């Protein structure tokens, strides 16, 4: 499930070794939509059932850019499990996304 706009965390069952991802976007642009779509696909493919994603729109909550040091947009931040990882771009290059998230492909339960 993806929550838009506000900072809402949804917990799913079995989130102990679950992944917490945050996508930073800046407004409704084609790029941010692409990123969201790509993210959904990747998560369903490789992290089914053990992830939580929230989307932060920097135009609505600009101060959040400071906390995670966000410059590029879109930026996807892997917050859990640690360590923190950041990848930028609209997530079209899936291999890079997986490398960046340190996720082995097809890693399903």
């Amino acid at each position: 499930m993806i929550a838009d706009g506000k900072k809402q965390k949804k917990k799913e069952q079995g989130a102990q070794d679950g992944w917490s991802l945050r996508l930073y976007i800046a407004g409704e642009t084609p790029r941010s939509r692409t990123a969201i779509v790509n993210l959904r696909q990747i998560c369903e493919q490789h992290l089914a059932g053990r992830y939580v994603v929230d989307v932060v729109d920097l135009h609505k909550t600009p101060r959040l850019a400071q906390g995670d040091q966000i410059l590029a947009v879109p930026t996807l931040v892997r917050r859990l499990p640690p360590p923190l990882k950041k990848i930028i771009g609209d997530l079209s290059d899936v291999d890079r996304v997986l490398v960046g998230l340190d996720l082995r492909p097809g890693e399903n339960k």
Partner: protein
Amino acid sequence: MSNRRVHTLNGIEKCPTGIAGLDQITDGGLPKGRPTLICGTAGCGKTVFGMEFLVRGATLFDEPGVFVAFEESDKELCQNVASMGFDLPALQARKKLFLDYIRLERSEIQETGDYDLEGLFVRLENAISTVGAKRVVLDTIESLFGSFSDTNVLRAELRRLFRWLKSRGVTAVITAESGDAKLTRHGIEEYVADCVILLDHRVQEQMSIRRLRVVKYRGTAHGTSEYPFLIEKHGISVLPLSSLQLDHSAPGQRISAGIPRLDSMLGGKGFYRGSSILLTGAAGTGKSSLAAHFVRAACQRGERALYMASEQSPAEIVRNMRSIGVDLEPWVKRGLLHFHAARPGSSGLEKHLVTIHQATEEFQPQVVVIDPITNFAAVGNFSDVKSMVTRVIDMFKSRQITAMFTSLTRGDSEPELSEIGVSSQMDVWLLLRNLECNGERNRGLFVLKARGIAHSNQIREFALTDQGVQLLDVYIGTAGLLTGSARVAQEARERMEDEERKQQLQRKTAELTAKRRKLEQQMARMKADFVVEEQGVLRDLDEMKSREKQNVLARVEIKESRGSGTLAAHGNGIH
């Protein structure tokens, strides 16, 4: 809000930086509402520059600012500039300053598709609106190139950023590292075209020198030379010529040189106030002594005197001057005389210039002595020293401080060859020369030039006695120029001759009197004789006269007696 706007003819509004000297070079400051690029090598002062721009903006011009740091954390920044008196936490608390540290790590960032740097814009917008900033510093923007590998995106975003900054109406300072062939390593100068300033930090002859140059400034006539600058405890000081035009006023007041006969050599009244005086001489000719007299005279007038010594310590100077009868100690105690001593080798020329400037500002003297100025030639090359002296003279003239510079010349061969070539900028040039004659060395003082003063063209013998400096006439005559013992001998000789002549005159006068007396006696005798003669003659005359009278009487008698017998005479018919 007290925005000080400075309009030039072209209508470019300037944003005064508040950095000492920079606003002068740029004729008002940086271009308002536009980005300025500051480039330079590592450690040349870009960050300090940007920080001072913001701090002065906040404190002097009431313009809040945002400092976006890509390389140092805010804590590090605060610490680094605290030594210059910039209290960043206080400014942050008063919402005059917003420090934003953007941490970039390349290794963390994978690029997985299209992106832009909107996040940066968001952060900047947030920062600017939090404090209402009018000034923004990005230090250093080129760090972005290290973090994002897609340079096309980066360049496009930078272009967008500068446009955005302009539209936001903030005066932005962008720092960048200078490249080998280009101004900046990544060629940012293409986007920041309004004003580019290059900072330079060199080590020249073991001295570190910082220079600043305005490479480009659209729409403004700016000084294009390299200006030395310093980073020291008050921040950055750029050292331009104090007034790029020669428009000093010309005070007409005259002040004494401290030696009465020297004053009389200078048209009778001494130096013009605010003039610059060069005192050259070989070693041991007494330059410092003359300077001490000058300083003492100022203190005696109640004026403040600053003595910048680069060869002797103040205690040595006071002791040495006491030996010629000039006691400077009481003036030091009364606070009218201040010594500042430092060996020139201890720092670079720019530092010395700033030291002189600061000492002058703090002490506010009316009279300054720099003794000697030639020591600075050891620290820089000829043209640098000359340029420094020019700035110093300029600074004094604009404050109407009368300044005396002593200068060491090589020897007697060419005493008019001043080593640092600044004599043309001086108003008065006094030359102390060694005069050798009769196995002695004496000193002579010449007034080589004195602008605006009818000065003596004659040399005076310059003697250091227990009562201070004495200027004596030299003997110039058939024997040539004599000084010292030869002069004394000549004077003695002349005195003797004078004495002789006087005696001769007396003798002659006495002779004349005697002759006159004799003549008078003779005349008296002759007169007496004449009187006797005269009397005799007169007596004879009298006798003759009386006899004559008698004769006449007798004849009349005879005639009368004959008259009674006239018939008889007739009767005799004697016809």
